[in-house]
């Protein structure tokens, strides 16, 4: 028993090599993991979650070295709180798409179709960026939708469409692409679409400032941008 306790203490207290802890929006999981794969020497660790949650954690003192946000208002909260070490830089853009079941069996062609009474539509909750953008797009299109659910994040919404429990929802282009053949996407025309901007910044209390800088530069580099593009993100 005592040796077990000792072992636990040792494991908990062992000195860790300098690693970079990156807090990143859930939608960035694919490209960021790929960027990490090519640079094992940087010692990158990710925490992926909804941006507001990441921001709340940073405000509560979570030891993030870098924050990559899915929108500007949330990044602004961090900057205004004096928690960022630099002015955020936009590294990618994203757009919305209607996510439907493969082969689009309900023949959904536009945002206006989402008001159809025979459809089970879900949106992301207005509290998260994707939900706010979706409502902006619907307002631009002049469409009123009665969702059956306001999902807490885009991935949950995509999964419910993939399972066939939801007919359609509004998510990022990159989420549709990431789900491969499990779902299909219906384009939203530019005049109704909303562009999401993704800013990145080093954090003031970064324990590994050099590592943080290296990661931010990597994301902004040609290599980083190419990887982001391959996941459906657009250049800033």
């Amino acid at each position, binding site marked *: 028993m005592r040796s077990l306790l000792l072992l636990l203490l040792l494991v908990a207290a062992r000195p860790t090599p300098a690693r970079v802890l990156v807090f990143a929006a859930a939608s960035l999981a694919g490209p960021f993991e790929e960027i990490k794969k090519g640079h094992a020497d940087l010692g990158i660790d990710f925490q992926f979650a909804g941006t507001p949650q990441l921001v709340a954690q940073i405000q509560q003192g979570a030891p993030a070295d870098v924050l990559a946000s899915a929108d500007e208002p949330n990044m602004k909260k961090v900057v205004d709180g004096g928690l960022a070490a630099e002015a955020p830089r936009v590294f990618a853009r994203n757009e919305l798409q209607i996510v439907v079941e493969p082969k689009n069996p309900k023949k959904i062609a536009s945002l206006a179709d989402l008001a159809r009474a025979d459809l089970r539509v879900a949106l992301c909750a207005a509290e998260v960026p994707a939900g706010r953008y979706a409502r902006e797009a619907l307002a631009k299109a002049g469409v009123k939708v009665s969702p059956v659910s*306001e999902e807490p994040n885009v991935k949950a919404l995509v999964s419910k469409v993939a399972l066939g429990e939801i007919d359609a929802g509004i998510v990022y282009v990159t989420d549709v692409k990431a789900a491969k053949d499990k779902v299909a996407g219906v384009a939203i025309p530019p005049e109704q679409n909303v562009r999401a901007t993704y800013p990145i910044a080093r954090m003031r209390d970064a324990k590994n400032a050099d590592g943080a800088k290296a990661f931010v530069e990597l994301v902004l580099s040609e290599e980083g941008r190419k990887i982001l593009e391959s996941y459906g993100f657009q250049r800033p």
Partner: protein
Amino acid sequence: MTRILAALGALLGVGLLALPLVGILLRAPWAEVPARLAQPAVRSALELSLVCSVSATVAGVVLGLPIAWLLARRDFPGRSVLRGLVTLPMVLPPVVGGLALLLAFGRRGVVGSWLESWTGLALPFTTFGVVVAETYVAMPFFVLAAEAGIRALDPRLEEAAATLGAGPWTRLRRVTLPLLLPSLRAGAIVCWARALGEFGATITFAGNLPGRTQTMPLAVYLAFETDPDAAIALSLVLVAVSLAVLVALRDRWLPA
């Protein structure tokens, strides 16, 4: 040495249990709490939570009591399987439970597909779905408490009543139920508290729609995304309710 270690462990444990409570009470925006709780969105989440958790408790008692009786009094093949089935929702992560419910009762689910085509009734994303999710997760707490209560019954009392001429209905009403009542009540209260706090299965199976499926825990989770103070105010309600449950059950859990 051992004693010091034990004391130290206990101290750390007490800290872990007490500090979150201290944290939420210290950080609570007390001045704003009444105004926040009076908001219509909060009221509807609170009402929905009460309606659903009480319904789930009634369902848990009605469906769970026969199971508890079987487990306590009858020896039959597959009894351990049944007990495993009852215990499963207690150990399963609720999100997994919600996903399993979706795959069973969803519109593409094994049962849900014909349920919808025969009756037009769809469970996911409805208030009824919330009740089903909460019942699934909370009923085991009632079943286990009721089973323990039934096991502890002295069968001789029922036999004595029978020899004195009491029929089965009278025996149940005048002897068995009154003896069982304390464990049934305790089981029902724990079941209700678990239903009230249910999050994972609900958001996975029933989704999140204010006024229809957004119960208090879901409202707390989403409020935290934009307005931590609102999340704290909502949490206080659930903390208060949980403490009230403890007080109600103090004879059972908090013997002086």
